[in-house]
């Protein structure tokens, strides 16, 4: 019941946003709806409530409308709600606001749907449904390179989804049902899992994106409007994390395990690769893009390793990255507003005129590079420690990222804020502070009490056949 509400709520909000009469309030509606989603989702893990729903849908095709919320879904939805709320609130002065916020709410609904769907067909519906609002938001409200970036993002991810569709269809034909829980209860023989696992992972690897399937990422992050880039990185990428856990590991644990050595190697390399490239970027958005690539590959590494610790780490790291990247994108936009450019070479020495911006940015960077006390550390440590149990070499390789991350992170702070005051600008106003401060506060809260997240990621997340560690 509540799972359906999590999808319905933003849909209603989308309709309200589109209503001409409420045009002035569309931003508020979108933000409040997103926040409400977060609150409701988090409430489901605190209060025991009936969350599931099951309605016949396309029975002939094996698909049904089955939704439910469990701890992991709830965490991701809560994160999504927060990120979307901040993103909506940050979307001031957009042209065609009714369309913008209606699409925004549709995106929220689709993302929520991905997290609650317990039927592969339904899952695929929501998975693809995310694309259209994203694409239109990027195309219509994006920056200079928006056309090419949108097309590339769209077609690349759709190519991944195409293979996912083949996987879903194959499962439907072979098993006669697409009910995820039913499928997970009776997994196919280990020897027959690799192929479907690869088909499913193709889509997830592109969406994450796993190295080297990230060709769409830097351009999309740069071209998308900041709130959309924030949502794209903060939560849409997490749908892939969730999907690998729920579907990849849930349905084809052996298949994923067979592919894991290769996947783990790619993810470990990608972790370093993204960080290394981030050290070279002058455009802040590209820097954030490659840093995200690094983080997301680390999360992928942890998921593929599939130990309880690493999976918990992946969830915490997802939450952390979502919050941190949202803060970073907002701060980048605020910086760009002051220097009229996202180029770090056009900033420099902002610390003396904008100390609060500097402090917030420094804190966000510190969280991004995983200093203890921030959520970044909790996620990174659990991910790597868990991975080490099964894939020591990959974990050690990926651990080198703590050094490289410091290079690009502190490099960012140094180039933008330190040094002689080449660029000046007013410090953050109250509105700007109010946007970023909650994110940073959450980063610290999750850093100090990661059990808020990990308590809801139980042993059942680890495929039984992969052994309980």
């Amino acid at each position, binding site marked *: 019941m509540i799972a359906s509400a999590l999808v319905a709520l933003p849909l209603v909000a989308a309709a309200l946003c589109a209503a001409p009469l409420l045009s002035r309030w569309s931003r508020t509606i979108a933000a409040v709806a997103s926040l409400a989603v977060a609150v409701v989702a988090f409430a489901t893990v605190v209060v025991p409530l009936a969350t599931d729903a099951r309605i*016949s*849908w*396309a*029975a*002939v*095709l*094996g*698909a049904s409308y089955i939704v439910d919320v469990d701890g992991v879904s709830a965490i991701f939805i809560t994160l999504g709600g927060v990120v979307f709320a901040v993103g909506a609130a940050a979307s001031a002065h957009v042209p065609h606001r009714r369309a913008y916020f209606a699409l925004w709410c549709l995106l929220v609904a689709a993302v929520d749907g991905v997290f609650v769907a317990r039927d592969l*067909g339904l899952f*695929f*519906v*929501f998975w*693809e*449904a995310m*694309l*259209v609002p994203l*694409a*239109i938001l990027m*195309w*219509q409200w994006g920056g200079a390179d928006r*056309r090419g970036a*949108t*097309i590339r993002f*769209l*077609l690349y991810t*759709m*190519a991944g989804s*195409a*293979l996912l*569709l*083949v996987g*879903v*269809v*194959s499962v*439907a*034909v072979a098993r006669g049902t697409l009910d995820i829980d039913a499928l997970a209860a009776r997994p196919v023989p280990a020897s027959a899992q690799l192929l479907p696992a690869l088909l499913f992972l193709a889509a997830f690897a592109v969406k994450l994106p796993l190295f080297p399937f990230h060709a769409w990422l830097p351009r999309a992050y740069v071209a998308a409007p900041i709130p959309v880039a924030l949502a794209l990185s903060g939560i849409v990428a997490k749908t892939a994390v969730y999907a690998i856990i729920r579907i990849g590991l849930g349905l084809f644990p052996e298949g994923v395990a067979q592919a894991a050595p290769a996947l783990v190697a790619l993810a470990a390399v990608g972790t370093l690769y993204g960080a290394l490239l981030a050290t070279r970027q002058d455009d802040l958005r590209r820097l954030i893009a490659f840093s995200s690539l690094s983080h997301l590959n680390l999360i992928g590494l942890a998921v593929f390793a599939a130990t309880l610790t690493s999976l918990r780490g992946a969830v915490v790291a997802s939450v952390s990255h979502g919050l941190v990247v949202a803060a970073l994108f907002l701060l980048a936009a605020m910086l760009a507003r002051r220097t009229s450019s996202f180029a770090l070479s056009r900033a420099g020495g902002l610390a003396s005129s904008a100390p609060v911006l500097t402090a917030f940015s420094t804190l966000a960077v510190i969280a991004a590079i995983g200093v203890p006390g921030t959520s970044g550390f909790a996620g990174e440590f659990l991910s790597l420690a868990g991975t080490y149990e099964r894939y020591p070499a990959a974990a050690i390789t990926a651990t080198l990222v703590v050094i490289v991350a410091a290079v690009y992170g502190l490099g960012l702070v140094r180039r933008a804020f330190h040094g002689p005051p080449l660029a000046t600008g007013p410090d953050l106003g109250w509105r700007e502070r109010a946007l970023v401060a909650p994110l940073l506060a959450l980063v610290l809260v999750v850093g100090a009490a990661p059990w808020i997240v990990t308590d809801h990621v139980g042993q059942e997340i680890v495929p039984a056949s992969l052994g309980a560690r």
Partner: protein
Amino acid sequence: MTVYDLGAIAPLLVLAGGACVVLLADLVFRADERVWAGLGAAFAVAAAVTALVLGPGDDGFGSEIRRDGASVFFAIVIGASTAAALLLAIGYVAPARLPAAEVTALTLFSASGGLLLASAGDLLVAFIGLELLSIPLYALTGLLHGARHADESSLKYFLLGAAASAVFAYGIALIYASTDSIAIGSLASATSPIGLAGIAFLLAGLAFKAALVPFHFWAPDAYVSAPTPATAFMAVVAKVGAFAALLRIGGAVTAPGVAGLDWRASLAVLAAITLVLANLAALGQSSLKRLLAYSSIAHAGYICVAVAAGVVASGAIAFYLVVYAALTVGAFGVITLLSNDDPTLDDLHGLARRRPLVVIALGVLLLGLAGLPPTAGFLAKVYVFEAAIGARLAWLVILAVLMSVVSAAYYLRVLFACLAEGEGEPARGPSIGGGVVVLAALAIIVVGIVPGPLLDAVQSVRF
């Protein structure tokens, strides 16, 4: 002629009769042009209702005309699509200075041919249906004298169509020579080389009507030149008829012990070629109508994937055809709302601002064409793919999904063109055609979300 015979051809009679009524009435009464299209639409609806009410029953004329679930279902689809196309014509004929009564009558005659083709029990009836379907279409294609190359296209279409008909007829002759029968059921015994050659020719003839690559060359030119409502009609009804016939013939050919494997392999290859080439060809088109023409060829490819899976896929094919009909009528319907009959993508600029509802509807239709959820187009593709996977055609499915990614590229170009700023072609005011478009979009969404009834209905498509 028995009452059963009458029951089997009742929808056909309504269509053909309607055509005659319109022609005669046009001679007698002077009415607003739009009345004739509306009247024609009413007859088309009546035909659909007739088929629905009478339902399946005994075949007529000694099984020459079938009255099985498939006939009834396709009659309803043809009737409804014809009605929709004629409704589009209501707002279209006057500005285009078309003779409404003739358009209506030709459309209805052609529809009756499609119906005959879809319910043919023997090859000769199928041939008659094929010709009855085609000849009015040749005429319709050339009606739009203002359009560039209308006459030329009509002539080309006729020449190619005649060749295809000849091939089909020759196929019938070979079959008859091989089996001494022209009943479709007798194809099962056409195992001699001559019989098999006949089957190959039948396949070629129907592939032409269904516009499968490389039998498709007539389609883009004809689609672009024809008056847009006729294009919508042509794209839907000709395919429904052709695929129904392909299914019937396929059902017989793939009966146990016969050349089923070859039949399916041929169709799979045709499907693959169609998918690749049609989608690639649509990529760079700047004319919306031509783009949609290639898109409809590509969709024939998807249907063909299911046809290759065999009769078990008849439900999938029927579902796909219904969804395709709605998508195609809707998409071509959008063109009838523009003042230019052959708009380029640039002409769409600014449409989102001027006609937001139409663009939302078009957006839904394009998503449906691209096979994206939550539209019925998505479910249709899933259904087809499931059938194909079940028939061990995984390679074809992978090709098909990758090609649907390519198709997304050109569908989204259309959508993004509507969203772009600028002054494109002025759109006509609200009209019945607009209503049809919105209704089609609505249907696509509703069926996407509540597919149950339609999915149940297509289970009745039995041969």
